[in-house]
């Protein structure tokens, strides 16, 4: 009987520490989820004369992937993006974040270009508006231009199968029903 209270305290601590181990401190919930995507207007990466803005995303479910040629994890993620682009499930747009135009272009021609279009965010201002804090980041945007999900860090096969793909299919169905 004497050991009941210490045992309860011990078990409570084990439970909380266990939860703490499972949490990823890099995963900061974005306040932008469920809100319209922040407006932006940027030159395209491939052609400085052409613009890329929020309107390009309208009317379809899309992914906006924030990347940079200097970003190591982006390189790790890249083959999966190329593979997804070939499957043609959802258009993937790129936001080349704090990069140089030459480096970004060279990166795409060397490793393949999964993006329908890439916007070029040289000073990272649009990145700040989107709450970007660590590339790569991927946003799921619905037909109405509302951000529905954010994935921080490289997309893994598991994250794609378990979270992103089901959400995209669900949003596409919602859109065609409406």
């Amino acid at each position, binding site marked *: 009987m004497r050991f009941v*209270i210490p045992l309860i305290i011990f078990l409570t601590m084990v439970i909380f520490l266990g939860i703490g181990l499972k949490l990823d*401190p890099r995963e*900061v*919930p*974005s*306040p*932008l989820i469920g809100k319209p995507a922040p407006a932006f207007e940027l030159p395209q990466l491939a052609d400085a004369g052409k613009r890329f803005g929020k309107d390009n995303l309208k009317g379809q479910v899309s992914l906006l992937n924030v990347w940079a040629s200097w970003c190591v994890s982006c390189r790790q993620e890249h083959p999966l993006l190329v593979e997804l682009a070939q499957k043609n499930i959802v258009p993937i747009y790129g936001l080349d974040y*704090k990069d140089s135009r030459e480096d970004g272009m060279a990166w795409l021609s060397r490793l393949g270009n999964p993006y329908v279009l890439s916007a070029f965010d040289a*000073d*990272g201002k649009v990145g*700040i*508006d*989107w*709450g970007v*804090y*660590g590339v790569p980041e991927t946003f799921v945007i619905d037909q109405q231009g509302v951000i529905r999900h954010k994935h921080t860090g490289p997309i893994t096969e598991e994250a794609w199968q378990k979270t992103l793909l089901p959400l995209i299919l669900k949003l596409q169905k919602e859109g065609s029903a409406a």
Partner: protein
Amino acid sequence: MKQGLLVLGLALALNAQAVEIRQFEDPAKQQIYENLVKELRCLVCQNQSLADSDADLAKDLRTEVYNIIQSGKSEQEAIQFLVDRYGDFVLYNPPLKTTTSLLWLGPFALLLGGGAFLWRHAKRRSAARETEPSLTDDERHRLQELKKKIEG
């Protein structure tokens, strides 16, 4: 010893250079800016404030805060700018909400729980002391005798 101090001094000087210096013409604005960047958390190196962090993003965010304060907007507006984009996570002093209630009230709950436990424990002990059987006159007499014998 002297050399050690010199090296230490140089190291500190280099360290201080890690974060750029921003000057305001208005000392009141300067004060607001300096307080703000100490209270805002860097998202890249999460245990550092914007003021301490050498991360690229922290530098960009300091620039944003600088521009907001420089343009004459209030401290609240600068905080709101960051909270809109990065959430309450950027605040070292988060507001009391349902999602942060455990953070704010948890310590008080622990204090209350601990206090209640101590109080009960102390009460039980004093109760135990009161019910301790006291010595009879005969026993007390024997005790005195024994003490005398030992002390010689």
